[in-house]
């Protein structure tokens, strides 16, 4: 029976590869990988900021004065510790008193 010598045949291909094809392909692949890496880094930064913002928001909720004491209104003790109006007026210089009376007239107080 007739046989064909496959092993003796050339391993050459009947096709051609365009010139510089592999170099161009390398540059394209490297550029695409660079883009993907950049996107990944940006995504990581956004995620980092998002988690930092969440932590800050939670911390603010626990540490802010209205978190523990309701509205931000000074309590009675801190009001009583304030100097009386008379004491303040007594400590003012003549110029300051002039400005005070001018402003009082202006605001109707």
């Amino acid at each position, binding site marked *: 029976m*007739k046989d064909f010598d496959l092993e003796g045949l050339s391993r050459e291909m009947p096709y051609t*590869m365009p010139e510089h094809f592999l170099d161009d392909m390398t540059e394209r692949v490297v550029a695409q990988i660079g883009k993907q890496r950049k996107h990944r880094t940006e995504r990581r930064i956004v995620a980092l900021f998002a988690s930092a913002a969440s932590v800050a928001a939670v911390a603010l909720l626990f540490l802010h004065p209205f978190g523990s004491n309701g509205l931000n209104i000074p309590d009675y003790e801190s009001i009583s510790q304030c100097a009386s109006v008379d004491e303040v007026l007594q400590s003012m210089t003549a110029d300051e008193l002039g400005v005070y009376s001018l402003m009082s007239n202006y605001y109707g107080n």
Partner: protein
Amino acid sequence: MKRDQSDIVNNQGSLSVSDESIARLLCDDNHVEEAVRLIMKKYGEPLYWHIRRMVVAHDDAEDCLQETMINVYKYRSTYSNEYPLSSWLYKIATNESLKLLKNRSGFTMSVDDLGDSLKDSVREEASPNADETLILLQEAIALLPAKQKMVFNLRYYDDKSYEEIHQIVGDSINTLKTNYHYAVQKIKDYILEHQL
């Protein structure tokens, strides 16, 4: 780049980087692009021809090779050095080729049904001065079922051992040998039938 003991300076004085060095660079985020360049330099051409023999058309081979390299980057953490780097690369390239053929065949046909259209592409893609027997050989390969085609190409053109083909294709060595045997027989029959 740090040279490894396994990196060899060849006769032309250029550095032939070992697969171990390339694999190390590939896993290092700061050197991944360098690793991809080295892979393209060392394996770009054999991978291109491996894909081209499967998909026939240059444009398809181009798409597959690009996708293969992107997947090499994407899935680099899955590479295990218990297998040679080349087997891993060939496996990705083979999968990409099969994926393209599967997309081409659609839902109603299998990849193996594409034989006739691939065979027709062989003559369209062949160089005008190509040897007629080489064209017949490619036509015969195009008509083979995908598994036989893969095994035949890897053994006949890439000189891969059955162990390496097993790492790429995944079948048992006996199955691979059977596939190769059938492939050779079908190719011989086709060439004898069509040769002038």
